[in-house]
């Protein structure tokens, strides 16, 4: 964990006059596996879009591998939330992965056999090779996510960004999914936006809490503050039974006073 893949300094961003992110300082170090957590509307997705260069900051700067974010998006593999709007789109899993290799500068070259075999390799790594020729809408939510990861990984990115990747996967699938990410993390730095603290906690290395401001925690320990931020009122109000039922290996609740 030495050099920074992403370097954010004193960055602020507002949307229609509403501040979304304020004075964010954040470093994503090589090899890290960071979970970005925070309430809805807290600015998690905005942070991803800023890193991807789809939005530009009002103040401060973002550098990705030393370049301005808008010039570095090809170093990043991006896995969006489920592409809901276009579910019935006629496309095979393999063609989705090949989309990851799109280079607008080189047109009309056709899809070389090498592109194809690399795309098949990427699917193979995700255990999705048997489904290469299946239509994307015939796959389950978890399988679709694997295809989207293959699409992101096929260009050998330096950073993998995932936006709520498990929202359409059941609990068992989520555990498998994070196990898979942990394996990928041997080669690539990962930043994942997530809702579910419980599932991620055993796999990630560090946590970034985003709620207008960003707090980075170098360990994967879930603190009381995080808990309060993600599930407001659970500590003071209702008893968080369903969370404890997971058999969480961390101490979550503070001691009785």
């Amino acid at each position, binding site marked *: 964990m030495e050099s920074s893949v992403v370097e954010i300094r004193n960055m602020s961003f507002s949307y229609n006059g509403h501040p979304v992110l304020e004075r964010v300082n954040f470093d994503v170090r090589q090899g890290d596996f960071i979970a970005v957590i925070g309430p809805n509307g807290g600015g998690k997705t905005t942070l991803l879009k800023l890193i991807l260069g*789809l939005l530009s900051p009002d103040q401060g700067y973002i550098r990705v591998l030393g370049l301005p974010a808008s010039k570095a998006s*090809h170093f990043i593999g*991006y896995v969006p939330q489920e*592409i809901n709007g*276009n579910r*019935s789109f006629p*496309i095979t899993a393999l063609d989705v992965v090949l*989309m990851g290799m*799109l280079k607008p500068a080189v047109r009309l070259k056709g899809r070389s056999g090498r592109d194809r075999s690399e795309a098949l390799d990427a699917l193979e790594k995700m255990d999705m090779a048997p489904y290469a020729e299946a239509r994307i809408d015939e796959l389950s939510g978890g399988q679709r996510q694997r295809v989207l990861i293959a699409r992101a990984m096929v260009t050998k990115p330096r950073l993998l960004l995932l936006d709520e990747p498990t929202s359409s996967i059941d609990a068992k699938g989520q555990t498998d999914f994070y196990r898979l990410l942990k394996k990928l993390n041997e080669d690539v730095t990962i930043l994942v936006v997530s809702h579910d603290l419980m599932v991620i906690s055993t796999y990630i290395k560090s946590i970034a809490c985003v709620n207008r401001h960003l707090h980075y925690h170098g360990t994967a320990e879930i603190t009381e503050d995080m808990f309060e931020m993600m599930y407001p009122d659970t500590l003071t109000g209702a008893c968080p039974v369903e969370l404890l039922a997971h058999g969480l290996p961390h101490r979550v609740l503070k001691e009785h006073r």
Partner: protein
Amino acid sequence: MVEILQYDFMRHALMAGLLASIICGIMGTLVVVNRIVFLSGGIAHAAYGGIGLAFYFSLPYFLGTIGFALMAAAVMAAVMLKAKHRADTIIGVIWALGMACGIVLLDLTPGYNVDLMSYLFGSILTVPVSDLWIMSAAAVLIAGLVVFFYKDLLALSYDEEFARIRGVPVRTLYFMMICMLAVTIVMVIQVVGLILVIALLTIPPFIVEKYVKSLAGMMIGSILLGMVFTIGGLWLSYTYDITSGAAIIVVAGCAFLVVQAIDRLVHLGRLHFAGRPR
């Protein structure tokens, strides 16, 4: 069937229908997967303003309509990119305003009385040969552009954000696509009418979408299906002496309903068998 083709006007009608099927099969696929059917309707109706403009200022017909349609299309494309959440409303406004301007301008034009029905349903049986040439050129141009930008259009249609990250010039391509659509619509309206344009743009791609595995397959399937509808409709129109444009749409619409019904039955059948105890 063959003896119909001894008439020149029938051969030309058939050619016009087949060319319209090609253009609409390609553009219709993009329209359906990008969910811009409403925008297409907007362009088609707003283009009537161009007809009014052309007659009022005695401009050449194509110059007036294509110019006006391109302008309306560019505004709609900008709105789609900038303010997607209110795009449908603004397109609705341009839709109505364009059409109304056309009618007012035609009212103000002395001596002219353009038949609104022929604009709506076209006059495929009186297509002049010159229009066939223009349509052929448009078909070649559109097919060429779509082949050249195929991967980019695919990425743009499937996942716009991802396309942007991969460096696809999304904005430029989107404008290009909408402009191609405007040209398509104006060309084809001239020949087969506004209603048939919308039908040929939407019905074949929608039917084909479920049975293909790629955008290219969807385009080819839509072209073939459009051709079948056109030929069937023209045959009906000739045999039973009914309006040709409407006949083509009725054929397409019936096919659409039949396919929907069959799909529904197959689906129910599967549920039935899946629910059986073994």
